[in-house]
């Protein structure tokens, strides 16, 4: 294994993580809700359900965060490495997978692990292993 020191951004990553953790903490301490993005999105796709406006406003906050960011700095780079077929397949897998698995990086990886939930720890290990394996296959076996 070689470390990519050029792209390694430890302080921004740690500080960003602290903000994400603080936001998830505020949401659970004040609103009593889990900041799980896939779960929030899915519940807004259903009709009815409680707390729709709170869920919608949380997602709206994420959506509008770049506009607030741009008041102070230029947006960080967003570089895409897959074509439209890859994005389509990836989006479908993320949509179906997070529903069967009841969560994603935020709900399981941040909130769930912080609650010490065995389900979330297992889910996080599963999606990380699958992510590592997928990149290995695409980059090193198929050489994409």
């Amino acid at each position, binding site marked *: 294994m070689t470390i990519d020191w050029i792209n390694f951004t430890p302080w921004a990553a740690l500080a960003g993580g602290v903000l994400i953790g603080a936001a998830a903490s505020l949401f659970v301490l004040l609103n009593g809700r889990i900041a799980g993005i896939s779960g929030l999105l899915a519940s807004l796709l259903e009709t009815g359900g409680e707390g729709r406006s709170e869920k919608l406003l949380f997602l709206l906050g994420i959506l509008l965060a770049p506009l607030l960011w741009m008041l102070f700095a230029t947006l960080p780079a967003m570089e895409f490495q897959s074509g439209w077929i890859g994005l389509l397949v990836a989006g479908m897998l993320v949509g179906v997978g997070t529903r069967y698995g009841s969560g994603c990086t935020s709900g399981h990886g941040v909130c769930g692990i912080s609650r010490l939930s065995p389900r979330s720890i297992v889910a996080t290990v599963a999606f990380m292993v699958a992510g*590592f394996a997928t990149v290995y296959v695409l980059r090193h076996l198929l050489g994409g």
Partner: protein
Amino acid sequence: MRKLTSFAAGLLFGLGLLLSGMANPAKVIGFLDLAGAWDPSLALVMVGAIATALVPFTWARKHERSLLDAPMQLPTKRELDGRLIGGSLLFGVGWGIAGICPGPAIAMLLGGHWQVVLFVLAMLGGMLLFSALERRRAC
């Protein structure tokens, strides 16, 4: 009040995603590429987030109501079943292909990249597909 705190928490969450590097698919894939030149940054995002959230979530587990008197809605499922593991594996494959997970997808949506729009539409399609399959299963 709770609507305001929802929005504020969402904003903070989004800023965190942008700062952390999670909203750059190339950086996410650099983290997932253990066999290449590995960028460990995103492991530190998890460390920072969990270290910050551990005490608040421990408090939440011990309380029935939030500080603003909302019911504490924490997941109650306990079983480690095939749906949890299979679903998470599928999610991980999708994450590995594009380097995008649901939170960053929302945070990048107004960034002016068609790739994010396509990804989000496909993701919502996948969620609707799941709901349709569940309804059939229930019949």
